[in-house]
């Protein structure tokens, strides 16, 4: 794991882009709070294993195309691997070095991990069964699925360097908004697809994406009925799909998304200020954020 963290730091320096770089968040937060990045290696290992396992479960639940490594294994095999990762993550947390954390704080941190995992599961459950969420619930789901978990990565890392609640809250805030941005940007994937048949096959994911959720929320009664009706038949009728696209555009969804991206980016930056993040590690945390919301 330490070797993996080292390689990720090298890749980051070379401007390579990959979700694996997020495993640096606990170490960077620790360093930006005044500690040393390696103090957070066990937290980074545990956190990233939990993240990777949850990502697999999410992909299986959403019937996403499998990653190449589990194409042959199938969904059952992928779930087995994810289960192993959950337990490996627990082991990593329990091997947390006590040198930088008193035993009582260590127990609290491990308990916080498990609590946040439960929150993440409840977000996943909401996402699975609330197929046409209201806008407020969309944000609740994004918070539970991703915001809480990324907030934990940064807060837990910083905890190794400081026990000041106000500062820890700042690091949590940075991670929380970072995580929410990942969810929003993930939704844009559905809008990069161009042909109707591909989108129709991913209808459920498309209809849970932020632009559609927003449009359903703000459109006037008649148009809301229209988008609801066309949404249900868009897989069979291309004209209905075009109608959904038209209503989403008309509602101002592009402006809403860009404004929300601005909001969460600004909030994440404020978190770094509140946390008193400093030095090169702060600069790298800002770089990670900027890369996430970078525009062509």
């Amino acid at each position: 794991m330490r070797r993996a963290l080292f390689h990720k730091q090298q890749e980051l320096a070379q401007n390579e882009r990959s979700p694996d770089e997020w495993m640096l968040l606990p170490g960077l937060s620790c360093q930006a709070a005044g500690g040393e990045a390696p103090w957070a290696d066990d937290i980074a290992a545990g956190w990233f294993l939990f993240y990777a396992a949850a990502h697999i479960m999410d992909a299986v639940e959403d019937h996403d195309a499998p990653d190449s490594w589990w194409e042959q294994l199938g969904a059952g095999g992928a779930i087995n691997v994810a289960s192993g990762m959950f337990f490996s993550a627990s082991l990593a947390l329990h091997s947390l070095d006590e040198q930088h954390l008193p035993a009582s704080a260590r127990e609290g941190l491990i308990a916080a991990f498990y609590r946040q995992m439960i929150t993440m599961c409840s977000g996943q459950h909401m996402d699975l069964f609330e197929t046409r969420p209201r806008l407020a619930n969309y944000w609740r789901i994004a918070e539970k699925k991703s915001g809480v978990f990324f907030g934990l990565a940064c807060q837990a890392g910083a905890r190794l360097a400081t026990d000041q609640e106000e500062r820890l809250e700042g690091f949590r805030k940075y991670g929380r908004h970072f995580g929410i941005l990942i969810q929003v940007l993930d939704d844009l994937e559905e809008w990069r697809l161009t042909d109707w048949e591909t989108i129709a096959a991913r209808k459920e994911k498309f209809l849970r994406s932020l632009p559609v959720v927003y449009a359903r929320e703000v459109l006037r009664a008649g148009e809301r009925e229209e988008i609801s009706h066309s949404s249900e038949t868009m897989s069979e009728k291309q004209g209905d799909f075009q109608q959904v696209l038209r209503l989403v555009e008309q509602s101002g969804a592009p402006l809403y998304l860009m404004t929300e991206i601005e909001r969460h980016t600004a909030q994440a930056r404020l978190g770094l200020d509140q946390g008193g993040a400093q030095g090169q590690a702060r600069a790298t945390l800002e770089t990670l954020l900027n890369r996430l919301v970078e525009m062509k």
Partner: protein
Amino acid sequence: MTLAQVVYQISTDSDFAAKMKTDPEGALAEKGLQLSKEEQAFLSRGLTRGTHADGTKVSMSDVASLYVGWR
């Protein structure tokens, strides 16, 4: 959800959109809407980014291709 409602108004009511540029407080008050100063600043940046150089609005596919994201 006020921000969402304001964005909808801007996108569907050209008079409201014009007034938001010159007198945002007045425009919001007329519609019974409220935005914090921070939200107004985010919206203003969103409007700048959400408009092409020729004044046309960006589309959803533009937004999707503009943001590099993490993939």
